[in-house]
Structures are given as structure tokens and as C-alpha cells.
């Protein structure tokens, strides 16, 4: 029951932050931002952020309503990574228009980001198996006293 409540509250928080607060702030600051970034129409921004908010809510629920070592928890973690990639791709798509014709060259930075993502997934898998092993410890061999 506690886990379920934790999952629901995490999902609600993620949806409110990503799906409501983010687009609201973008709309609020759009007069200032529009001189640097050419934003899509407001309804498209709201649609995109509500979708990302919903996806983050689902993955947040799976991560918090289940325990580390359960498969839904692993799907939540993996899904959260995929949603983050989509979310940041969407955010970065807005960027080149903000820096004129020449834009951003980020080859070295991209390699660092790939390395970070790879390390995060290796950690996730190791953590998952560590948690499963802790949940289901090997039965001790019977000790026979002589």
C-alpha cells in the first residue's frame, strides 16, 4: 500500500512538473525567449509537454510502486532513460535556431554524453542483479555437526 501511494505521488509530481509547470513557464517567458529561440505554437508545446509528462509519470510510477529487483522497476528505469532521450532531443531541436546560422559543434561533448548513458545503463543492470540477489539469497548449505 505504501509502495502504491509512493508510485502514485511520484507519477503525479512528474506529470505536474513536466506536463504542466514546464509549458506554463515556457508560455510565461515566451515574449523574452522568442528573441533567442523560435518557439513552436503554444498548443504544440503544450501537447508535447503533456505527452512527455504522461510518459514520465508512467515510468515514475513503475520505478516507485515496485521494488528494486522487480521487472516492472527495471522497465520503469529503462523507459525513463528512453523518455529522457526523446525529451532532451525535443529541447535540443529548438536550440540551433537560437544561435544563428553557425550553431553548435558538440562532437566531444556527445562522446561524453554517450559514455555517461552507457555507464548509467551498466550501473542499472548491475544494481538490478545485486537487488535480485539480495532479495533471493542462496539457501545456506546445511551444517552437519559431527
Amino acid at each position, binding site marked *: 500500500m505504501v509502495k502504491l501511494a509512493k508510485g502514485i505521488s511520484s507519477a503525479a509530481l512528474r506529470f505536474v512538473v513536466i506536463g504542466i509547470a514546464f509549458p506554463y513557464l515556457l508560455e510565461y517567458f515566451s515574449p523574452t525567449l522568442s*528573441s*533567442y529561440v523560435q518557439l513552436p505554437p503554444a498548443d504544440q508545446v503544450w501537447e508535447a509537454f503533456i505527452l512527455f509528462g504522461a510518459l514520465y509519470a508512467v515510468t515514475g510510477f513503475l520505478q516507485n510502486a515496485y521494488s528494486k529487483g522487480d521487472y516492472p522497476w527495471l522497465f520503469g528505469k529503462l523507459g525513463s532513460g528512453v523518455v529522457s532521450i526523446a525529451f532532451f532531443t525535443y529541447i535540443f531541436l529548438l536550440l540551433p535556431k*537560437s*544561435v*544563428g*546560422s*553557425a*550553431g*553548435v*559543434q*558538440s*562532437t*566531444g*561533448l556527445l562522446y*561524453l*554524453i554517450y*559514455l*555517461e548513458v552507457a*555507464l*548509467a545503463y*551498466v*550501473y542499472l543492470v*548491475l*544494481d538490478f*542483479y*545485486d537487488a535480485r*540477489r539480495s532479495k533471493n539469497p542462496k539457501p545456506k548449505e546445511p551444517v552437519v555437526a559431527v
Partner: protein
Amino acid sequence: MNGIRAAKYVVRAASLVVSILIMVVVAGPILGAVSPQFLTQQQPLGLGIDLNSINSQLSFFHNSSTLAGPHDIAVTAFNNWPLPGSASLLLKLIVNNQTIYQTQPASLQLDPFQSGQLHISMDVPSSVVSQLQGQRVGIGGTMSLAEGQYWTITVSFPQ
């Protein structure tokens, strides 16, 4: 401690180090662009160029007799950040949204926590001076900031 748990902590530590490096790399030029607007009294943070100092050096534009000939414009580039970087800047004269003159780019390598001057030579040819007569001249340019080999951000101004 078993092998999987030890490997987990090692990977976690490496991941944290890479995350911090990414944040430091990304934050340098962003802080360099934003902090001069807010820290007007203190030294700005990050890697950037103090574009505010250009306008005060363009007084030769007010008189057509002083317009021709070489003019040296010194612009401060700062790197108040723990990674080495480089800054480059070129200036343009814009009339009716068209660039009629462009300087050679001036570049500067900056070690961590080092500042320097970009010296831009503006030698406006007499043919260009004649085009400027009676026109409203705008100043534009292109600024590049590179944080080591990790990323280069190039901004054209005015947007």
C-alpha cells in the same frame, strides 16, 4: 563485499565523474553569456566575451572624416572557469540588412581563470566609407566560444 556490488560502486563513481564533467563543460559558455548581464559589478563567470565594451569604442563612426583608416578595437575575453577554452570574434558593418564590411576574426586561447584582450583591426576601405554616407549603420558580428575539444558554440548577433 561481493563482485557485482563492488563493480556497481565503481561504475557509479565513474558515472558521477562524467556527469560532473558534462555539467562543467556545458555550463562554461552559458554562464559566460548570461553572467555579464547580472554580475555588472563583479567579474563575470564562465567563458565569454564582453560585447558591451564594443559600443564605447566606435566613436569614430560619428564623423565620416575619422571613419577611413585602421581602428583597433579591444574586446575583453574572459575564462573564469576551470577548463581551458578559446574565444574568437569578428565584427560586421551592416547597412539595410546587408553586410558591407567584415573584419578578420580575432582569436585567443585562454587557460583556466585567465582573461585577455581580443584585438580586432577595423580598416574600413574608402569604397565602403562612401557607401556608409548618410546611412544607418548597424554593428553585427560572430562570436565563437570553444570549451576545449568538447564543444563550440557560435552565435551571430544581432539575431
